[in-house]
């Protein structure tokens, strides 16, 4: 999907690409991605459903949709979104799957036993002048925002090296008691934008892979991402998996080009 936001001095162009962990079961892609572009502003989000969770695709979608449609731009607002989605989640979790008599035992057990969780990164951008802009990013877990200028990675947030990715990252859980850090668990970053910059939001394993290549490729990976389109993205994912630098997992990339009007 491609969307363009035009303002007095700067425009944002967004492309979203995704690829499932299993090409034979594309419906089992369990990330979420979305964006909303207004006049001189934009909201973007990627969520990565945790493999251990239940209905993670729906959870990831709710976090993303909430962020972009409510146009959030502060940690408090993101925290409020999470609290409300946790409250609403019981409706999804407890909804009967089918007629009571036809239910399998695992469907009956699900409400009691199943949690859902996702890593999340949300981004707010704003044009502040003819050639200037700013952004704020919010993250829980290991989906990352990468800010690229030319072929240089200026920053990666919240993780900045491939070694920083852990087996058990922080996640946005549907059960608030699993997030003892509460609002403090939401990490915040901000920065300045110039025309020509590229912002990347990526799911966890893709983020790790991009940082791995960034450290070794002298910027070639960012050149490749600037040029990528849907067919070449799919080829790229297959190649990275074959190379071994990208673990088999659902993959999501949201690319935002910052352009001069």
């Amino acid at each position, binding site marked *: 999907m491609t969307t363009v936001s035009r303002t007095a001095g700067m425009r944002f162009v967004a492309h979203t690409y995704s690829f499932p962990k*299993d090409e034979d079961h594309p419906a089992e892609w369990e990330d979420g991605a979305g964006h909303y572009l207004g006049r001189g502003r934009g909201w973007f989000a990627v969520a990565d459903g945790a493999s251990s969770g239940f209905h993670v695709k729906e959870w990831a979608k709710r976090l993303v949709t909430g962020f972009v449609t409510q146009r959030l731009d502060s940690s408090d607002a993101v925290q409020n979104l999470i609290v409300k989605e946790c409250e609403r989640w019981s409706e999804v979790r407890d909804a009967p*799957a089918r007629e009571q008599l036809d239910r*399998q035992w695992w469907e*009956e*057990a*699900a409400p009691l036993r199943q949690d859902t969780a996702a890593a999340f990164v949300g981004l707010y951008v704003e044009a502040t002048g003819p050639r200037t802009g700013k952004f704020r990013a919010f993250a829980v877990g290991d989906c990352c925002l990468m800010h690229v200028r030319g072929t240089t990675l200026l920053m990666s947030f919240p993780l900045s090296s491939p070694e920083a990715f852990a087996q058990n990252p922080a996640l946005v859980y549907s059960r608030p008691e699993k997030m003892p850090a509460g609002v403090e668990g939401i990490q915040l970053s901000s920065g300045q934008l110039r025309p020509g910059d590229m912002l990347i939001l990526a799911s966890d394993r893709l983020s790790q892979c991009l940082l791995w290549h960034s450290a070794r490729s002298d910027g070639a990976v960012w050149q490749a991402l600037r040029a990528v389109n849907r067919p070449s993205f799919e080829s790229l994912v297959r190649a990275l998996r074959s190379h071994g630098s990208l*673990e*088999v997992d659902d993959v999501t990339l949201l690319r935002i080009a910052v352009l001069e009007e």
Partner: protein
Amino acid sequence: MQVNRKTPGCFVFLLDQSASMSQPMLGAEKKTKAQALADIVNELLQSIVMRSFKSRNEPPRHYFDIGLIGYGTGARPLFSGALAGRLLASVAEVAAGKIRVDRDADGHVQPIWFDPVASGVTHMCAALDLAGKIVEGWTNSHPESGPPIIVNITDGYATDGDPVPVSRRITSGGTNHGSTLLFNIALSSSEATTVAYPSTDHALTDERAKALFQMSSPLPPLMRQYAAELGADVQDNARGFVYNADLEAMIQAIDVGTRT
């Protein structure tokens, strides 16, 4: 590594069902070892099914293959009904293949795959041999999966030979991502000190306990980390072995050993 349909995981559980399992389980009021083991493994199977149940109106996904072997006098697969005789079954087959669904005092479902048995001697070597055949076939057809995990739970020692050689044969195989893992949980018969995830056999005075230590694979980093989170004192070269396990230690060890 992540389990999915293309790279499912594999668990094989070897359960001692010899006569000595009729003794009381330490830490479990009024339960025999056989009953405690059946309760915990039935609960574990439920947990593995639920880990693979991802979306409503869709059966559990094929994220795991599971083997369930009991041993006393001889070794045999414990699945019954539609799965009778099966050495390995997919998680969806396991979900559908329970023998009945009980309910606890609160009305919550408790699927049952096997009932407690305590009879005969301890043919652990036969069980290990069977497990070796199961995982050899599985690793040949799943080279890109993580290595299979065999969890052996016993309260005694092999009465049909030396289990160390067959264990070494098992752990010499594996997938492209690691050697087959064999973990051992030795249930306690008395109020003895539990030795959990040792890195040496120095704390073990019994030669047969030392043999179980030798048979046990080193814990992979993820499991070490998880064991530490649960409060265990684990060194870098900790083995997947718990000696003199009471009920709590057994539950924790199964939890650690099935962490993927």
